[in-house]
C-alpha cells in the first residue's frame, strides 16, 4: 500500500519528473491548439527523442502532452472557430459565438476549469475502477459499437439547426467522405474516382480544417473591414458560484467521457458529441440558446473529452490494448523501452499504473495553471485585424494539413473542402453534421460489416442478436426511446402533418 502511495506521488516529488510533466503540458496546449499538429504525432516524435531516457521521464512527458493537447484544441475552436483537434469540434459550436460576443476570455477560463474537473474525474475513475471498466469495455461486440454509432447519428437533429433535411444531407455527405479509400475487407477502392492518392482515404482532420478553418476564413472576407470585437478580459477566472452551478452537468458529462473513452473503438471526439447532446437534452434553461453561446454547450464537451483521457488509459494499462491512437503510441514507447505491455503489466509492474495515475492528476494541475495564465494575450488573437488574420489562418491551415501525412494532395483537398464549406454555410447548412458523418461513417460501415460477418451474413440473425444480448438490448432500447422522444423530429413530423 505504501508502495502504491509512493508510486502515486513519484511525479509530484521528483523535480525532474515535475519539470517534464509541466513542460509536456505546456507544449501539449500548443500542439492541441494548432490544427493538424496532433498529440499522436507529438507523442511519436517523442519516442525517438526519449529513446535513451529513463522510462518514467518519457512517460511523464507524454502524459503531459496528452492532457495538454486534448485541452488545447478548444483554444482555437473558441477564438477562431477552427477546432485544433477533432475532439474540440463541438466546443466551437458555442465557444465561437461567445468569442463573437467579446467573452472569449471567460469562455477559455471556464473551459479550462471544466477540462481540469473532467480530467481529474477521469483519472479518479481510472484509479478506482480500471479493471471493472476494462471488463465492461470488452463486452462491447461489433454490433454494440454499431448501435453506438447509430445513437451518434441521431445527434443530427441536435446539430442540424433549422432544416433537418439539410442536416441529414450533410451527415450522409460527411459519411461518404469518410468512406473514400480502400475497403477494409476486400481492399477494393471505394469512391476514389480512380485516383491512387485517394486509396488511403481523406483524413478527417483534413476535412475538419477545410470546413472550419478555410471556410471560416472565406466567410470572414465579407467583413474584412469590420472592426474586431473588443474582448472583455477582466473576469477570466470563473467565480466559484459559476463552477458549482455547472458541476452537476460536468459530473454527468465526465462519466459519459470516461466510458466512451474506455471503449477501444471510440474516443474523445465521439465522447464530446454525446456530451453536447446530453447537455442539450437535459439543460432546460441554458445561459443562451445552444449554438448561440451557451456556457453549458462549452462545459459538456470540454469535460467529456478530458475525462476520455483517463478512460483511454483503462484498456491500455489493464489489458495492454490501446484505447485510442495516442495510447497506441505510448504502448509502442513501452515496448521500445523494454517493457511488455499486456494483461500482466498491472501485476508485474504495478508502478507503471500508479505512476500514470499520479502523473495524470499532476498534469491536470499544471493544466489549470497554464490554462488560466496567458488567456489575456490569447484573447487578443480575436482582435487582430481581419486583413492580417485571414491570410495567416490560411497558411496555418496549409501547414497543419501538410503535417498530418506530409501529403500535398491533402492540402488541395483541404482548400476544396474550404470552398465547399463556404457555400454550404452560405446556404444554411451546418458544419457539425458533416463532421459527425465523417467521424461516424467509417465506424458504422466497419462495425456493421463485422457484426454481419459474425452472424454469417444473415440479416435475421443480426436483428435477433440486437434484442437477445442484454447489452445490445439496452442500446437498442435507448435508440428507440431517443427516436420516439426526439422533440425536433416530433415537432417536425407534426408540423408536416399540420401543413397538409
Amino acid at each position, binding site marked *: 500500500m505504501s508502495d502504491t502511495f509512493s508510486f502515486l506521488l513519484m511525479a509530484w516529488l521528483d523535480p525532474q519528473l515535475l519539470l517534464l510533466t509541466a513542460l509536456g503540458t505546456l507544449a501539449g496546449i500548443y*500542439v492541441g491548439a494548432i490544427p493538424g499538429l496532433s498529440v499522436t504525432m507529438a507523442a511519436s516524435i517523442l519516442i525517438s527523442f526519449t529513446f535513451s531516457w529513463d522510462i518514467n521521464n518519457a512517460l511523464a512527458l507524454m502524459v503531459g502532452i496528452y492532457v495538454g493537447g486534448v485541452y488545447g484544441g478548444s483554444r482555437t475552436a473558441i477564438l477562431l472557430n477552427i477546432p485544433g483537434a477533432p475532439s474540440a469540434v463541438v466546443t466551437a459550436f458555442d465557444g465561437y459565438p461567445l468569442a463573437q460576443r467579446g467573452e472569449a476570455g471567460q469562455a477559455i477560463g471556464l473551459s479550462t476549469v471544466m477540462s481540469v474537473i473532467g480530467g481529474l474525474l477521469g483519472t479518479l475513475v481510472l484509479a478506482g475502477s480500471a479493471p471493472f471498466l476494462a471488463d465492461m469495455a470488452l463486452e462491447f461486440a461489433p454490433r454494440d459499437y454499431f448501435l453506438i454509432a447509430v445513437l451518434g447519428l441521431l445527434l443530427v437533429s441536435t446539430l442540424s439547426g433549422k*432544416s433537418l433535411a*439539410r442536416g441529414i*444531407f450533410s451527415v*450522409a455527405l460527411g459519411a461518404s467522405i469518410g468512406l473514400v479509400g480502400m475497403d477494409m475487407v476486400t481492399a477494393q477502392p471505394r469512391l476514389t474516382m480512380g485516383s491512387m492518392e485517394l486509396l488511403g482515404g481523406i483524413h478527417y482532420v483534413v476535412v475538419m480544417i477545410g470546413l472550419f478553418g478555410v471556410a471560416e476564413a472565406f466567410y470572414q472576407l465579407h467583413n474584412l473591414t469590420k472592426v474586431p470585437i473588443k474582448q472583455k478580459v477582466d473576469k477570466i477566472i470563473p467565480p466559484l458560484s459559476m463552477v458549482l452551478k455547472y458541476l452537476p452537468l460536468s459530473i454527468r458529462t465526465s462519466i459519459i467521457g470516461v466510458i466512451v473513452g474506455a471503449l477501444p473503438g471510440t474516443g474523445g471526439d465521439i465522447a464530446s458529441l454525446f456530451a453536447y447532446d446530453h447537455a442539450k437534452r437535459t439543460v432546460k434553461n441554458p445561459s443562451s440558446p445552444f449554438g448561440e453561446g451557451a456556457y453549458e454547450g462549452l462545459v459538456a464537451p470540454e469535460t467529456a473529452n478530458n475525462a476520455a483521457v483517463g478512460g483511454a488509459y483503462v484498456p491500455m494499462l489493464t489489458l495492454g490494448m490501446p484505447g485510442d491512437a495516442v495510447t497506441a503510441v505510448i504502448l509502442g514507447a513501452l515496448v521500445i523501452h523494454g517493457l511488455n505491455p499486456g494483461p500482466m503489466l498491472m501485476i508485474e509492474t504495478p508502478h507503471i499504473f500508479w505512476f500514470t495515475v499520479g502523473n495524470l492528476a499532476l498534469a491536470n494541475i499544471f493544466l489549470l495553471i497554464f490554462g488560466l495564465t496567458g488567456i489575456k494575450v490569447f484573447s487578443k488573437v480575436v482582435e487582430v485585424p481581419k486583413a*492580417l488574420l485571414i491570410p495567416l489562418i*490560411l497558411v496555418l491551415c*496549409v501547414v497543419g494539413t501538410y503535417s498530418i501525412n506530409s501529403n500535398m494532395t491533402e492540402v488541395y483537398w483541404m*482548400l476544396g473542402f474550404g470552398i465547399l464549406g463556404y457555400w454550404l454555410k452560405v446556404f444554411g447548412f451546418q458544419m457539425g453534421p458533416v463532421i459527425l458523418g465523417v467521424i461516424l461513417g467509417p465506424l458504422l460501415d466497419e462495425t456493421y*460489416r463485422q457484426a454481419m460477418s459474425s452472424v454469417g451474413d444473415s440479416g435475421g440473425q443480426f436483428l435477433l442478436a440486437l434484442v437477445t444480448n442484454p447489452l445490445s438490448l439496452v442500446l437498442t432500447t435507448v435508440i428507440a426511446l431517443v427516436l420516439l422522444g426526439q422533440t425536433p423530429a416530433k415537432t417536425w413530423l407534426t408540423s408536416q402533418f399540420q401543413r397538409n
Partner: protein
Amino acid sequence: MSQKFERVQPGEKVFDWLLLLFSIGVLLEAYRIDGIPSVNSPGSFPVGLALVMLASSVVILVSHRRKRRDPRIRNALHEAQVFLHEHFQPHIVVFTFLAVAYLAAIVWASFYVSTYLFLAVTFIYFRHGRVVSSLIISAVAIAVIYALFTLVFRVYLP
C-alpha cells in the same frame, strides 16, 4: 411559421439543384464498387448513403415551394447579379485566386518562399499598401512557423 414564406437566398435554388446532381454522381460512383450491393458488401454503405443524399436533396428542392425570393429581387437575371455582387466581390475573388496560386506554388517554389510571397502580397492588398509593415509581419510569421514546425516538431515542409 407555415403561413409565412421563408426567404430564399440568391443562388440557393441553383445550389440545391447542384447538390442533387452531386448526389447522383456519388450514387454512380458508389454503384461502380460492386453493382447492386448485397446485405454485406463494400458497396452497401456508399450506395445507401448516396440514396440518402439523393432523397434529402429532393426534400430540400421540394421545400422551395414554400420559399420565396426577396421581393426586391425582380427576376432571375437580377438574382444572378445580386448573387455575383454578394459572393464575387473583388477582394474575395483575388484572395481565392491567390490561395490557389499559393498552393500550386508550394510544390515547385518550396514552402517558405511561396508562403512569404503569399502573405506579403495578401497583406499589402488587404491593407491597401503599408508595404514595409506587411513585409515585416510576413517575415515574423515565417520565422515562427520555421521555429515551431521545422525545428521543434520536425515536420518536413516541401
